[in-house]
């Protein structure tokens, strides 16, 4: 077991359900934090996209929760944790084009079913755990200093 790397920066953001006025503001805050820490444009862009997709999912579908930004020596981690309703079939929900979005979400330009896939596409390590009736936890990790294709 390698020793855990040093935490450089940690921020916790609350996400309210269905708050469309503020939806996306955590992601813009995360982007600014990472820019201030001197992260490369590629890392900032990937982290921002992951965060935005996760944040929109929480706003549109969850009962609310929080997003934790954790910057370590060798990685940027984004943790999304919500209070439900949980995802019954994670493989299905991760499939590009699969969506359970209601019309009002689609009218806002979201809910095309690329969200989870896009988060994974921009991560080096990606894990979802969920229990129906309890909630979902997503951990998306970007490793610093390794090539990304």
């Amino acid at each position, binding site marked *: 077991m390698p020793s855990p790397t040093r935490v450089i920066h940690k921020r916790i953001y609350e996400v309210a359900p269905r708050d469309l006025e503020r939806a*996306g503001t955590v992601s813009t805050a995360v982007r600014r934090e990472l820019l201030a820490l001197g992260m490369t444009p590629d890392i900032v862009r990937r982290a921002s996209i992951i965060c*935005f997709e996760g944040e929109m999912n929480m706003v549109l579908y969850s009962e609310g929760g929080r997003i934790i930004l954790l910057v370590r020596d060798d990685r940027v981690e984004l943790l999304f944790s919500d209070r439900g309703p949980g995802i019954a079939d994670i493989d299905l929900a991760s499939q*590009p*084009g699969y969506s359970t979005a209601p019309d009002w979400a689609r009218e*806002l330009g*979201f809910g095309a079913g*690329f969200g989870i896939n*896009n988060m994974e596409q921009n991560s080096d390590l990606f894990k979802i755990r969920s229990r129906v009736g309890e909630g979902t936890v997503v951990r998306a990790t970007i490793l610093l200093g390794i090539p990304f294709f």
Partner: protein
Amino acid sequence: MKLAEIAKLLDAQFVTGADQAEREVARAFAADLLSDVLAMVQEEGVLLITGMITPQVVRVAEVMNMGAVLFVRGKLPPQATVEYATGATIPLLATGQDMYETCGTLYRAGLLPAKRKGFPLGNAFPHARHP
């Protein structure tokens, strides 16, 4: 292509960011579906052409570090969104032309499509399951 030139070609107005009329955008992407913008655009400094006027349009433009947003079909975003864009220094333009005319005009004038990933469903069809 300079934003000023784009505004002239399309008879578009600056909603905010007129002071950045000299900013260059090399490429453009057009969509109303923000999911597609997030999943496909692969580079920064892109001009986003859209008919969506929700606050999330400008937030997407900010997190993806886009060069400017051009609203088509005569749509104008709410004042709060304009103020947010001003604070984030993202120029907003608006034209009365529709998306097809806008894209055609800019393409003919030499504005190239943004670099993008493969379409998410491009190699999944027809096996992807839908609800």
